């Protein structure tokens, strides 16, 4: 029964011109998008390698210099592109890829690709995620909108009923016929992507298990769409109406809901402007020790405290350079201020995330999008993680430099120069993105929402096809 229906539906699909054309178009688009992304990926990573080594060379070859001058001179942390960005580019285009690490200031990642592009970039890119998230659901609609309505329109429904079919087996046959081609296309794409990535040099953190998880996420997404399309087809009387309703669902889920969510999230939990943020940081910074200002109230307090602690009555008697010590204390205060303000940002973002999760109730697109980006390491959380790692490294670097300054010179000795070989001893900045297990546990609610979508759409489908 199931296999009979499956074979009949598959034959019908294969014999239809529109299906064949659409199939070819989807495969073609996928091919082009994978090729473009693979090229881009190689290109960006090449630049990343060059920039990283060049920057380190610049740092290492500073020559003799005061450690605090070197701190102001700073260095850069570059964000690599991860292999699975080949499948999902996520927010990479909108997040900067290089962070300037200097004394006193935490800088934002700079130079996002979007700021260097024309307004056209806002339409979206022809990347595999665009095809996977938007076009394939459309393809499912195209294949399945008349799955049940055609039986009504042709009058074969009454004939089938008189043959005493079991409605859920019949439905399952139709379901399998609709889902199998989608499954095949997706599997093909992920296999190609896997072998492409395996073949690329220095593929780094690429793992087949991440790719497979990503594959499962998309399969889950397509199951939801398959269920919805069949559900609509079973509940409507005419093919045309079924098509229109399915499309409305698609528009709301994939286009309208994300945009509306972004508007609502921004209005309810706004980010400060860049200038506002800077002004707020400055205000808080003024309330603590400033490494460059020995005359401030806080600096004087620090002086008294340190003198007391060491039981001496002059800064010159301290076993280290108090200038450098104050510099470090100032640095710590500043790091704290930044931490506070960035935590506020993160807080706002996690509130925004709640809005997105809430609207996921009307859009299976949202949990899929977030899961996919997370697994591909192209989401906002990974960007935060990278920025935090860079900040930790910056704070550690400042301590490293200030300690050298404090230990090797005396109070007031601004002429101190560290050895030319000293710079090499600074540890190299290494960043590893979160592991798959961690990502999945972080995205537990998204997985739950998606699972809920699958379960409820299946349930409704079985419930409604019973009464056909």
């Amino acid at each position, binding site marked *: 029964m199931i296999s009979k229906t499956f074979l009949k539906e598959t034959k019908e699909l294969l014999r239809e011109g529109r299906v064949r054309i*659409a199939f070819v178009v989807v495969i073609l688009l996928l091919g082009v998008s994978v090729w473009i992304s693979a090229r881009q990926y190689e290109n960006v990573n090449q630049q990343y390698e*060059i*920039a990283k080594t060049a*920057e380190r060379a*610049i740092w290492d070859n500073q020559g003799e210099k005061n450690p605090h001058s070197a701190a102001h001179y700073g260095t*850069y942390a*570059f964000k690599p592109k991860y292999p699975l960005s080949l499948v999902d580019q*996520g*927010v990479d285009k*909108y*997040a900067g*890829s*290089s962070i300037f690490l200097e004394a006193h200031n935490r800088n*934002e990642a*700079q*130079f996002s690709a*979007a*700021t*260097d*592009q*024309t*307004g*056209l*970039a*806002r*339409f*979206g*890119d*022809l990347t595999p995620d*665009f095809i996977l998230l938007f076009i394939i659901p*459309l393809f499912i609609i195209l294949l399945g*909108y008349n799955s049940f309505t055609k039986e009504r329109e042709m009058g074969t429904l009454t004939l089938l009923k008189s043959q005493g079919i079991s409605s859920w087996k019949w439905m399952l046959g139709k379901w399998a016929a609709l889902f199998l081609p989608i499954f095949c296309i997706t599997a093909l794409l992920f296999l190609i992507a896997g072998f492409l990535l395996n073949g690329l040099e220095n593929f780094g953190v690429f793992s087949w298990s991440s790719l497979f998880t990503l594959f499962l996420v998309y399969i889950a997404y397509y199951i939801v769409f398959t269920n919805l399309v069949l559900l609509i087809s079973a509940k409507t009387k005419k*093919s*045309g109406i079924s*098509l229109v309703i399915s*499309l409305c669902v698609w*528009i709301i889920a994939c286009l309208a809901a*994300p*945009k*509306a*969510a*972004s*508007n609502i*999230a*921004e209005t309810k939990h706004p*980010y*400060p*402007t*860049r200038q*506002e*943020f800077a*002004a707020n940081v400055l205000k808080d910074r003024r309330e603590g020790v400033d490494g460059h*200002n020995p*005359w*401030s109230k806080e600096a004087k307090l620090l002086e008294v405290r340190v003198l007391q602690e060491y039981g001496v009555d002059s800064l010159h008697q301290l076993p280290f350079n108090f200038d450098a010590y104050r510099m470090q204390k100032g640095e710590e205060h500043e790091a704290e201020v930044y931490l506070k303000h960035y935590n506020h*940002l993160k807080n706002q*973002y996690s509130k*925004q995330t709640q809005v*997105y999760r809430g609207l996921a109730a009307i859009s299976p697109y949202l949990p899929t999008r977030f899961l996919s980006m997370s697994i591909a390491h192209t989401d906002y959380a990974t*960007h935060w993680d990278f920025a935090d790692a860079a900040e930790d490294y910056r704070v550690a670097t400042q301590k490293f430099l200030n300690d050298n300054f404090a230990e090797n010179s005396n109070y007031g000795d601004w002429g101190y120069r560290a050895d030319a070989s000293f710079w090499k001893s600074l540890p190299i900045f290494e960043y590893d993105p979160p592991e798959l297990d961690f990502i999945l546990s972080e995205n537990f609610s998204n997985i739950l929402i998606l699972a809920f979508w699958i379960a409820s759409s299946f349930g409704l489908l079985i419930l409604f096809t019973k009464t056909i």
Partner: protein
Amino acid sequence: MFSYNFKYELKLLLRSRWIQLLSIILLLLFGFSTFNGLQKVEKRKKDIRAAYVEVQENDEKMLKLLDSVERGMEVSVPRWTIPTSPMAVGNYHPRVAAMEPQSMAFIATGQADLFTHYVKPKVSGNDFAMNFAEMTSPVQLLFGSFDLAFVIIYLLPLLIIAFSYDILSAERESGSLRLLAAQPIKIHTWVLQKLGLRFFWLTLLVVCSLTLVFLVTGLNPLGQLGVFFGLLLLTLGYMLFWFSLAFLVNLGVGNSARNAVMLLGLWVAFVLLAPSLLNQMGNTLYPMPSRTLMINEMRNLKAEVTERQDEILDNFLRDHPEYAINDTTQFRGFYHRYMASQRLIKEELSPIVDAYEAQLKERQDWVDQFKWISPAVIVQESLNQMAGTSTQDYENFRKQVVRFAVGWREHFMPFLYNNKNFTQEDYPQLPKFQYETKAYASFATVPILFLISVGLFTIGFLFSGKTKKGELLTSS
């Protein structure tokens, strides 16, 4: 025939509740998107106002400090922030260089979520390192905004498709087409009249609901009659384009579902694929030089310059004696050297920066050439330009700010190199930034859009003569 079509088309549309449904959908969509747009504009205005207020408060403090210092009183601020030093004024009391929203800014978010609307350029730092990117969650940038432009570009065509995909095929499927064809009329003229009427009604609904939404949200469309009509004409041109496609598809022999699929395919091609393909090709043909590599180059240059600071200062003063014309003290401090080397860095880096500008411009030119492959691209660009949120607007702003930053720096140079103190009398002479809007919107696109649509209609008419009417009427 026309008067009867007119009368009964309206009756049919009313009885099938199309008109009622469309009015509600349009009102909701226009209302929600306008509301969103206005909120964004309001926030933008508020932010800018707050920045001005902050500067004003700071200025008052600065004047008080100056007053105290000039009267020889002790002040309790760090030595290097005392505003008698011109560099302190230049760094700690920057002016706001703001880009006020234009009157129609709410219709299209454009690049407004990506770029900042005000900066405060200081005397130190590089102009090209000035960060014009706004602090926005990249997720928001990725999803985009539910603005009027989105409704017009993405959703309106879908409404048109739903409204017109089965004009002929529905008659065929229900069987009334044979009866119609037995009347002494031309079927193609009849289809055109039906489509024309639907276009008329949709136009009326769009115009009314837009006007209504504008009035309710407190905007006076009569206040900016020119721009408002520009918006309406552009929207109508775009709608006409989709109606002409619907006409072509309707004339082809197809059933309703096939028509819908075909029109949808066209929608995907014109609205989703063509723009992204164009963007991708632009990126591939005119790749941006790597920003990360630019950073490397900049750093190398800086390292080199820092070593030769004294020499650079000497050269600088030799080249620009005018700056130090009244200097009697010959005092040379950190800033004297710094400003001179900054200038050098800027000069030496300008070819690299220019390369970016040139590449971006070439890319834009390339896109301009090919934007005609999709009316969606044209409409997006035109709406952004009307709203003053297009890439060009922000580029214009950026250029004006850089010019202002140069002026700001130049203003303090004579103070610095003459070792002259900044005083209360010098305050009113501080340069101020005034953003000059440049109108990029050109109404030339509207007639071209209309021409394209009329061309498509003509093609439909020419080809329809050749298609076999028999197929249309005998196959069922």
